[in-house]
């Protein structure tokens, strides 16, 4: 099943600095909760993994991360990551597109994530998947901002807070 999330946010940092962070695999991957890089294959391809834990369900995806597009002039990038759960519980694919625009000395960031999961995680049902993806995305944004300001990045994924957040999200909806 496919889930798509689009978010825009503004940072006070100059567009070139934001671009460098966004397109540096060692920095961007650190902002994705639970993700790590293990090996650089070539200029655009990396090997790595993502570990996710939603309450009782653990999934560990080993896979390949590819920069499909890095347009420094247009400040547009597309990153694709896909992997299989190491225990055969399913696979996941994520395509992230980022577009930067200079504004008031800072930068407007527009990010779209398209996530496609099969197997165990898909069985959560669309409702939970959306909420979990949103939580992960929010954590990514706050990490990304912290990194730009030279702050600490929390790349671990707290199962308790994640599921708690989702449950709060479901019941807090109006």
């Amino acid at each position, binding site marked *: *099943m496919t889930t798509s999330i689009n978010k825009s946010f503004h940072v006070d940092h100059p567009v070139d600095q934001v671009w460098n962070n966004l397109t540096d695999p060692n920095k961007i991957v650190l902002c994705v909760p639970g993700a790590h890089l293990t090996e650089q294959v070539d200029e655009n391809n990396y090997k790595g993994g993502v570990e996710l834990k939603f309450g009782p369900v653990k999934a560990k995806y080993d896979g390949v991360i590819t920069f499909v597009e890095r347009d420094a002039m247009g400040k547009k990038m597309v990153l694709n990551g896909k992997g*299989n759960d190491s225990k055969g519980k399913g696979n996941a694919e994520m395509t992230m597109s980022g577009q930067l625009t200079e504004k008031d000395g800072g930068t407007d960031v527009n990010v779209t994530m398209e996530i496609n*999961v*099969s*197997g*165990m995680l898909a*069985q959560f*049902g*669309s409702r939970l998947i959306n909420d979990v993806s949103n939580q992960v995305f929010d954590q990514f944004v706050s990490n990304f901002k912290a990194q730009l300001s030279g702050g600490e990045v929390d790349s671990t994924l707290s199962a308790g807070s994640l599921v708690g957040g989702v449950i709060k999200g479901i019941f807090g909806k109006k």
Partner: protein
Amino acid sequence: MIVDSPFTIDNSPIKIIYQLFNANNMIQCKTSKAISGMGHSMKRKEDARFLHGKGNFVDDIKLPGMLYMDIVRSPYAYAKIKSINIEEAMKVPGVAAVVTGKDLEKYGLHWMPTLMSDTQMVLPTDTVMYQSQEVAAVIATSRYAARDGREAVKVEYEPMKPVIDPYKSLEPGAPVLRTDKPGKKDNHIWHWQAGDKEKTEKVFAEADVVVKQQMYIPRIHVVSIETCGCVADYHKVNNHLTMYMTTQAPHAIRTVIALVAGHVGLTEEKIRVISPDIGGGFGGKVPVYPGYVIAIAVSFLTGAPVKWIEDRSENLQADSFARDYHITAEMAGTKDGKIQATRFKILADHGYTDAAANPSKFPVGLFSVGTGSYDYDTAFMEADAVYTNKPPGGVAYRCSFRVTEAVQAIERITDIFAKKVGKDPAQLRMENFIKKEDFPWKSPTGWIYDSGDYHAGLKKVMDVVGYDALRKEQAEKRARGELMGIGLSTFTEIVGAGPSKDFDILGIKMFDSAEIRVHPTGKAIARFGTKSQGQGHETTYAQIVAEVLGIPAENIQVEEGDTDTAPYGLGTYASRSTPTAGAAAAVAAKKLVDKARKIAAYLLEVSEDDLEWEPGKFWVKGAPEKTKTIQEIVFAAYTNHPQGMEAGFEATHYYDPPNLTFPSGAYICIVDIDKETGGIHVRRFVAIDDCGHIINPMIVQGQVHGGLTQGIAPAMYEELIYDDDGNILNGTLMDYLVPTAVESPKWETGHTVTPSPHHPIGAKGVGESPTVGAPPAIANAIIDALSPYGITHLDIPITPFKVWKALKEKGAI
């Protein structure tokens, strides 16, 4: 054709029952409360142990040295298995073995037949065909170790693009899924048809009015409280298997096991199937699931008992689904509302294999009863079944083989027709009903409806709700822009499968049986080939025997579910227990009355013709003080029986019904809909059922309440949803909405009594009528509420979102 009841002997106790019941439509009890025969609301005998937590379900069974099994399942709907690595799993403390398809292949146990004579993998050797399919089994010394072991099994898959949409599955060029079948070139399973095609086409071509509606009866699940499971206990020394399992048909299962495993030495006399207490079956516990077979195989190989119990998600995701019919329904008639013909075209999505549980000759079950309660003579129906990458099934979920689908189609299209000709749906039904005096009535598809009084049922339910006043209220509300709907369903069921001429499962005829043994002190044990899953057989069967024989129901112990002790029968599903085994009980008891008469004549030293009988005693005509009670007679059968007569007091009967029975019902549902949110409030629901003679009114009412709740479920809440990749999107009860007490309206119930003329006690069966009849009443009510805005149909489940969206599209909000 109708065959006369086997009870033609004058003075038969059965005849007496008839006369009393037929006097008027009220339930009259012929026996005293002490005897508690038919018509008494006797409290359920089985409830004491359930209320005290002393039931004995499969998961309560613990045997010395028992191993536990858990199952690795596929995350993909369609994938090649590249490798299965069990190394890590074997390191988990307590894990004893991991069984794969390749292991079973060595013994020829990796495939099994389905009840529909299709084939199904037990465990795959190379390809998985649906999400949650069994891939490997982990055997361990505890349940927790088995689950940990399951997590540690590594399976490498190569996913393939699955076929999920049944229409696309039939398109030329669609990938052929069942490559295991030599020469199979498409995904088509079978074609079925009934009725007269040419005549139907002619009537349709010449009719004043023709209406047509495409409708989907969604894939749902029975969601019984207890999931499926078993304990397989094979003793190597004795070469004997005891199989404790959640099955609605223990005898049939024993025969199937013997057929599948005979080649490894497990022949039928070496197999004992015990179906202990069951926490709901609803058709989901009729099929043979791979888990049962794997447990047997592992117990056979290890010599240890093996327990397998599904968890809730496994049950919902992998066990047999129900429904999943795409139907094109058409009705032709005159402009003043006379129905002339119907036509139905079905596409049946069976998933990976046809694992339905229908009688062999009926691939669409008894769908052909879908011409309904209306008097016309022309119909044509056809169906095609297809394979897709979804779990297999097509079980008869609390309905007699696809009758729910049929009733939804006919009752929806009847409403659409009524709307088209501008008639009130109640009036149109009244004008088209088969008349009481026209029974037995031959339907356009060849069924002989045994009896019915449809006008009386509809009139009664209309009186209870105050139909005319409701229509007036509705008109006033509509003038104010408020949404109120009144929905009807006047359905005919077909149950009690079935006559051996037409009905069998894997060749075994669908009779059922009863064996009554009366002990010297006048207390009895009665055993049956059926199996209660909550229906209350221990009480109702005892009441049937009490009715005929006069031994208090309280003193009759009913036993089912053990193939070593019970007589052979095909089990409990499709509302068949009362029509078949209930009848067998009445006939067997009647045989005992005949024997009792001989003993009484001997004891009283009179001729048999000089005796009068009422359940419980014989007396000499004109000398009522000269009496022998049934207890005295039974004692004499063991202590002082006439010379030349066989001693003892036992009887067995295998009842082969001459026809099916045709219960009916008239339901009205009233809904109020919030225009702004689409929220649907069921204000009232009144169900008038006619199941012939009622054995225990309290149990019937309970059955109807449960059935109605399982009727509102698909009408408003339940549907198993799959995405294009074959992922189930609501595979837990968090997302799959089962109605609870909160969602259930107050069910109002009542009855009319039109006995079955061919059944020994005139009963018809009731377990499924409400599940079958409720969904169209609810759907019709909702559509009726929305009709001022030009909305003529919505597929079930009709959710607030669907209502809101339809209103939005029509510009109503």
